[in-house]
Structure formats: structure tokens, C-alpha cells
């Protein structure tokens, strides 16, 4: 059943891509290239399975997320609890499935926040130039110099630990790279004739940016977004591991691993910390494969 739905997901994506980008050949070329990339395709399939599991967690998880079984505390994997139970007698497998919701949504939403800030800042800096450009680039310099985890922890302790604040913190700190990319691309693009034409037609600055410039730099933005999701998932796991991200009882893969900070768990109860670690690893690996495939597929220099 999983497999069937899985295929549907992939097919839907194909259809969507085709209708959305009808007639735009570079995207079709890119997509056909992506289809030939085995690693990227594997990444896409694995990701679809993980997303499917996260969405249908309520129906698939064998036990409740916070269901406590005091007769089975810290038990090893068995037929009743496929991946054993944790120190409160909760089913590890079910918590892993629910934890996927957290990790994936943090990755997606944090990256969207970074995307909005980064594209806006980069576009304004690149298009306006002069003093505005200077001011924005100094802000980028400042944020880039922040020791990431220290600042993230300070902000997290001001706002309080919650999944929304984690998304905000990661988004607010990881837009700088994108801003630089967008600015650089726009700096070269805005000298081109078609922008001059748009200007002489009397279009406003924001119209030129959104309708003429941004569509032309969609490729690097898309690649950045894909790889950004992988980065955000890793950061969320790190923050939650340190106790400043998603807090118990809500499970996240990162805060599940922090059980291994106890030496007993680390040495004797592998089922409590190795599976969430492997899941983060598999998720991030799949996204990285997909992102790298996209980069190659969208690279105009590699045209055949």
C-alpha cells in the first residue's frame, strides 16, 4: 500500500511540473536530466516515503505518541514494541514516526523563512545598489559572523523552547548565503537589455524584480532551498539534542538522541538513540542527493 501511494506522489509531481512549466524548455531539459540521475531519484523516493509516513502518522503508528506502558520501561525490541520502549515506557517506533513530522516541517518552514528574507534582501541590495546595498551587505556580514549555536541558544531562551521558535531561529540565521547569491545574480542580470527594455516601458522597481529578475534566477534559489532544508534539519537536531529545540513530550529525532547523553543508554540501549540518528542521516542524505542532482540538472553550462 505504501508503495502504491508512493508512486502516486511521484507521478503527481511529474504532472504538476509539466503543467506548471508548460512550454518552458529549460525546465523540461532539467527534469529529463534529473530523471537520469539515479542518486537523485533514489533520494526523491526515500523522501516521499518519509513524508508519507509523517503525514499518515496518526494511522500508521502502532502505539500512541505519548502512550505510557509502565510494565514495559526500557524494554528491548520485541514483537509488541518493534523498536523497544524508552525510559517512560513509550514506543520508540511510534515516536520516531511522529518525530518525522517535526523534523520535516521544521526543515521546510525554517527554509521558507530563510528564503523569503534572503531573496528579499538580496534582490533589494542588488537592484537598488549604492547606500542601501552597502547597508544590507553589512547586515549580512554581521549575521554571517554570528557564532550560530550561541546566538540560536540565546534567542531560543528568550523566546522559550517550542517548535515554532526553532523554525524562526533557524530561518532568521540562515538567509545570508542566499542573499549573497541573489544579489550577485541580480547585479549581472540588471545590466542586460531586457531589463533596460522593462525600465523604458515604465515598470516599477518591484515589478522588474518580481516579474523579470527573480524568474531568471529560480534555479540557484531552488538548489539553495533544497540543500537548505537538509541543513535546517541538521540544525534542529543539534538544537534539540542540546535541549534548546523541540521539548519533550513532543518527539523530534534530535531530542530522542539526547537520551544517549546518559552513559547507560549509550552503551546498553541502542534502540533508543541509534534509530533516530539513522533517520536524520537518511533524510539529510536523500535531500542532499536530490539537491545535488537539481544543481547538475539546472546548470546551463552542462547543456547537451
Amino acid at each position, binding site marked *: 500500500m505504501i508503495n502504491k501511494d508512493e508512486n502516486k506522489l511521484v507521478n503527481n509531481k511529474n504532472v504538476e511540473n509539466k503543467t506548471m512549466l508548460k512550454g518552458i524548455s529549460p525546465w523540461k531539459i532539467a527534469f529529463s536530466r534529473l530523471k537520469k540521475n539515479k542518486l537523485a531519484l533514489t533520494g526523491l523516493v526515500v523522501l516521499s516515503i518519509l513524508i508519507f509516513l509523517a503525514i499518515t502518522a496518526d494511522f500508521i503508528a502502532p502505539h500512541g505518541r505519548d502512550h505510557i506502558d509502565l510494565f514495559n520501561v526500557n524494554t528491548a525490541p520485541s514483537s509488541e514494541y518493534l523498536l523497544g520502549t524508552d525510559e517512560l515506557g513509550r514506543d520508540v517506533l511510534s515516536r520516531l514516526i511522529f518525530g518525522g513530522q517535526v523534523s520535516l516541517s521544521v526543515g521546510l518552514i525554517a527554509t521558507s523563512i530563510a528564503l523569503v528574507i534572503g531573496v528579499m534582501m538580496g534582490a533589494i541590495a542588488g537592484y537598488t545598489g549604492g547606500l542601501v546595498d552597502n547597508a544590507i551587505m553589512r547586515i549580512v556580514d554581521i549575521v554571517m*559572523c554570528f*557564532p550560530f*549555536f550561541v546566538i540560536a541558544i540565546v534567542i531560543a531562551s528568550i523566546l522559550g523552547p517550542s517548535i515554532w521558535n526553532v523554525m524562526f531561529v533557524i530561518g532568521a540565521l540562515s538567509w545570508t548565503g542566499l542573499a549573497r547569491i541573489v544579489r550577485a545574480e541580480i547585479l549581472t542580470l540588471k545590466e542586460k537589455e531586457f531589463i533596460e527594455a522593462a525600465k523604458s516601458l515604465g515598470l516599477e522597481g518591484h515589478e522588474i524584480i518580481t516579474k523579470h529578475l527573480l524568474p531568471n534566477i529560480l534555479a540557484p534559489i531552488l538548489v539553495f532551498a533544497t540543500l537548505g532544508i537538509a541543513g535546517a534539519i*541538521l540544525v534542529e537536531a543539534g538544537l534539540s539534542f542540546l535541549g534548546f529545540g523541540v521539548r519533550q513530550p513532543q518527539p523530534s529525532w534530535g531530542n530522542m538522541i539526547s537520551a544517549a547523553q546518559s552513559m547507560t543508554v549509550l552503551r546498553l540501549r541502542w534502540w533508543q538513540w541509534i534509530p533516530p540518528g539513522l533517520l536524520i542521516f537518511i533524510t539529510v542524505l536523500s535531500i542532499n542527493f536530490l539537491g545535488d542532482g537539481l544543481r547538475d540538472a539546472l546548470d546551463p553550462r552542462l547543456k547537451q
Partner: protein
Amino acid sequence: MRKYIIRRLLLIIPVLLGISIIIFSLIHAMPGDPFAHLIDPNMTPEDKDRMLEAVGYFDPLPVQYLRWVAGAVQGEFGHSIRFKEDVLKVMWPRIQNTFVLSLSAMIFSTLLAIPLGIISATKQYSVFDYIATVAAFIGLSIPVFFFGLMLIKFVAFDLGLFPIAGMQTVASGYTGWQLLVDKARHLVLPTLVLGLASTASLMRYTRSSMLECVKQDYIRTARAKGLSERVVIYKHALRNALIPVITILSMQIPRLISGALLTETIFVWPGLARLSFQAVMNRDYPMIMGTVTVMSIVVMLSNLFADLMYAVLDPRIRYQ
């Protein structure tokens, strides 16, 4: 060139001010009181207020900030609330520890990544290239702390090859040679963990930079005039391919220093990142400001270093 360096150094000042203002306002917005656990519970609230007043706790924030800046430019970062000692004095040994760890991680990743990247590029699409590429992806995708915990469990506990944590065996009484070996053994696992991600990305960059170089006309010329493949690759291509690699290498420095927090936490390594983490936990304001300032300066200097190396190595680049 000299003008350029001076301008870049001057540019550090506004950025540093910006960073310190933001951090200063952020840490004062944190809930909690750094003096809470230092104050004698028998003290009356009035006495407590009087004492806090004496250290300037109730001054308006801009005044407190200016006081901090005035001290900082003279190398006075104030007294740590937690350690009851001068901030610089507490930081100094931690800076050295962090330096040892990041230097060792950097040497490890450079020695491993650059040769692997070159071989990968010269044998593009071979089995070796494929395995190296997948390995690099694995290195970039595994969470640092998870990798560290796995090493601690399987290598340190189960096989007993290396110590679990710390910088040296406590109360071992080792001296001289033995002490050095003991310290080196403690350094192995943290180096692997901290160097992993850098190794992976450095390898990818070396590979793509090398591939880019091999396509150039002067390589074809070198081959055409009958040079051996060895000379073509290692003398002509490699030299030019390494220019962007060195930039990437210096860009790893910030990641090695402030990104070391998870590695330092897992291996209980007394470094700067862990110190700043503890400072945040204890609301040790002067210590947070001190550690963040040091880290930011290191980041900016290594960025400047990267740009300068670029100009030194590549005569085509001129800075004004």
C-alpha cells in the same frame, strides 16, 4: 594592496560594533538573573538592590553597553560572574584548547581531502570516484553529534581503542613522552568528528576545481608539448586548482571554531564554544560578550586571510 588590507581591517570595526550591539541587547532580553545564585538568601531585597546598583545593574542599557565598549577596546572584558575571575584569563586556556582541536581537525581534513579530491577528479566516473563521492555525501549528511556518539559507543566503549572523553587522563601522573601520547590519544576521536564535514566538502571542492582546471586550454597545450600526465596534473593543473580550495579552507575556520560546540559537548572538551554555551546557560553576561567577540574577530580575520591568499596565489586578481 596595503590600502586594501587597511580598508578591510577598518571595515571590521563597524561589523564588530553591530555584532556586539545585537548580542548585548539579546542577552539582556534573556529571562533570568545572573546574580540569583550568588546572592546570600538571607539578604534583604533592599540590600540586594543596593549591591546590584553598585555594580551598575540598573543603569540604562546604552550606558551599560558603552561601559562595556570602553573596557573592551582596552582589552578589559570585565569579570566573569560565574568564574569570579577576569574574562580574558578564563578564556585564554579554552582558546588554546579550541586551537589545538581545530588545528588538528584542519590538518586531518586537508591531508585526507585534497589527495582524495585529486584522484577522484583524474579518474572521473571511475569506481573510486563514485565511492568517494558517495562517501563525501555521507560525511556531509551525518549529524555531527550522532557520529560522535557512535564513535564513543563502538570505538571507545566496545573496542576500547580510545578514551571516551576529556583532554587527558585525570590524575594519571604521566609526564613527558607519556603525557604527549595520552593527549594525542584523547585528540583522535574529536578530530575525526570535527573534521568529518570539512573533509567531505573540501574533497568535493578539490574535485570540481580540478575538473574545471583540466578543461582549460593551457592543459591541452601542456599535453600537446609532450609532458607526462604526472607533470601535467601535478604541476600545471593542481597549482591552479588549489587556489579556490585554499579559499574554501580558510572559510572552514569559523565552522571549526564556533561549530565545534556539539563536538566539544560530546567529548567534554574544554574549548571556547562550550565555554560560551555554559556562559549562556549561567547568564554570565561578560563571559558571553567576551567569547562572542573573540569568535567574531577570528571569523572576520579568517575571511580577510582568505581574500588575501587569493590575491597572493593568483596574480590575475588585483585588489584596490
